[in-house]
């Protein structure tokens, strides 16, 4: 059985990303105005991290299906 480091990376980024984005959605807009130059950084960066995690998981899935070579033979 081969170990694909993209699997834990994907899972961790997806989880953290969703979590942080959720904080951004429910958070007080005043905090972001005061703190992060008026940008809801939690929502934006949470989505970026979640997206990156999803891409990693997609690569793992493609590799398992045999469409891309596994990273460690």
């Amino acid at each position, binding site marked *: 059985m081969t*170990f694909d480091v993209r699997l834990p990376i994907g899972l961790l980024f997806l989880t*953290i990303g969703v*979590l942080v984005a959720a904080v951004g959605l429910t*958070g007080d807009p005043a905090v972001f105005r005061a*703190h992060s130059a008026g940008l809801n950084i939690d929502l934006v*960066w949470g989505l970026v991290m979640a997206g*990156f995690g999803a891409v990693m998981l997609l690569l793992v899935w493609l590799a398992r299906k045999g469409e891309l070579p596994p990273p460690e*033979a």
Partner: protein
Amino acid sequence: MSLSGVDWGILALYLVFVLGIGIAASRRAKSGADFFLAGRAIPAWVCGLAFISANLGAQEVIGMGASGAKYGIATAHFYWIGAIPAMVFIGVFMMPFYYGSKARSGPEYLRLRFDEKTRALNAVSFAVMTIISSGVSMYALAKLIQTLHVFDAPFAQLGLPQAWIFHGAILTSALVVLVYIYAGGLRGAIYNEVLQFFLIVAGFAPLVWLGLKQVGGWQGLQASLGPSYTHAWAGMAHATTNRLGVDWFGLSMGLGFVLSFGYWCTDFLVVQRAMAANSMSAARRTPLIAAGVKMFVPFLVILPGLIAIALTSAPDKASAGLHAPAVAGAIQQHAPGVIPVKIDSATGKPMLDARGRPQLDYDLATPNLLLRYFPTGMLGVGLTALLASFMSGMAGNVTAFNTVFTYDIYQAYIRPGAEDRHYLQVGRLTTFFGIAASVGAAYMASQFNNIMDLMQLVLAFVNAPVFATFLLGMFWKRTTGHGAFVGLATGITVAALHHGLTLPLDNLPGIKGGWIAVTHTYPSEMAQNFWTAIWAWSAGFSVTVAVSLMTRPKPEAELAGLVYSLTPKVVVEQGAWYMRPVVLGVIMMVAVVILNIIFR
């Protein structure tokens, strides 16, 4: 600012994943080769990212931010001059001998190429150095976490004194690194380094984004800081006309050649990552892939420092009208900005420099920026990034120490000829021992700061001339073991002498130099460092050549695979163009020249 449940959750998730990767890797750590060399089965991109990550320790992240705030974008020389050319050189020219010689460590290569004594000198100094540097960085991180005050509230709730934040930070990180290396060996460390690399990027990229957004982008930085901060090559003709206090020759020879090649081409901490690769081609591509990423790391770690100083010396609102905008180099007194004034912990008063101006605590540039910009949620991501950088740096030291101690000290001098299983066990125990020694070094650093500075200084002397040894060993078949050893010893002595005879401006003789007599004064500590390296290397190089010519070389038959002219060339450059080391190397060099032109 204190941590909320979400931030704790993110930190906890990170720890769970890091431990999980270590345990997953342990299923494949069955032999010495698995544990110490990751079974030589790791793909090039993973090795390449681990290669960078092992270097992107907390000291680098914090230190480069501090230098960015102090010296400006010229700090990028540590990457564009001080790393990329050496990384290309090791990938294209040196890796065939490291990987092809089947040596299991840097010191072991020296034994194969030269003799026992050269290996012993290199192995022992390297082992001590890794422990010291991992201890010092552990101390720095714990101190930093304490200074940030983010854990004050939870510790107060638990009824623990604030001093326990320091202990807690040291013990937790030590324990986690211990578990994943003990279980997974080098493989566990490398896979975690890749995860940690992405986390560091995820934590610092948004910081740079928000910071640049507020200061008005790169143009905004240029406008508020002036050219001495935003040009890497301006004023490099003379040491007195730039912020670093070095001239172009000292910079390119000292940093670009001796220190850079000495570190990137010989330090086993990085070389080990490439030696874990699954083929010769992958091993050669490892530093080249790493170089491709490394050249953009300045934007991640140096820019926060520039942003912090921009927000400190020209505060947008708080102190408008109080001070004139920053003329390059002039730092206002008590500027209420991101970077605080350094406080003497003994007296509680601001620390002053030799001219009586308050010193800024540059080390807090990046961390304070993080606290300023990151709300709950992102704060957890940012702290995770700091922790990740710390652990990757420490794990790099620990795995390198393991291998060198087990193979080059234990197997070589304490118990040779035992079974592989025995050395695997010793390696695991060494992890424990190495981490315990690092923790000890961290506490020593907190007690006797000067002793640790002194140790680091002495070890820097040891490291300066070592590139001469490897370079001559790999590319001149006439080099002998006696030549290498005497050359190395001379280089170390010359480094110490040079340090003892020179002093940077505005310093007192002592730990900063001049402890024999002050015969020359350098405009900056950096200039002194670079010239110490240049002298040490030149002395090491010439003495190695001279003694080699007077002594008998090894028969050529014994040197196949170890020396350039006696090793069959790797003609099979198979695969697509982007898989070829030479092509990759040329691309990296062109890219780094372009970066230098953009930021000239």
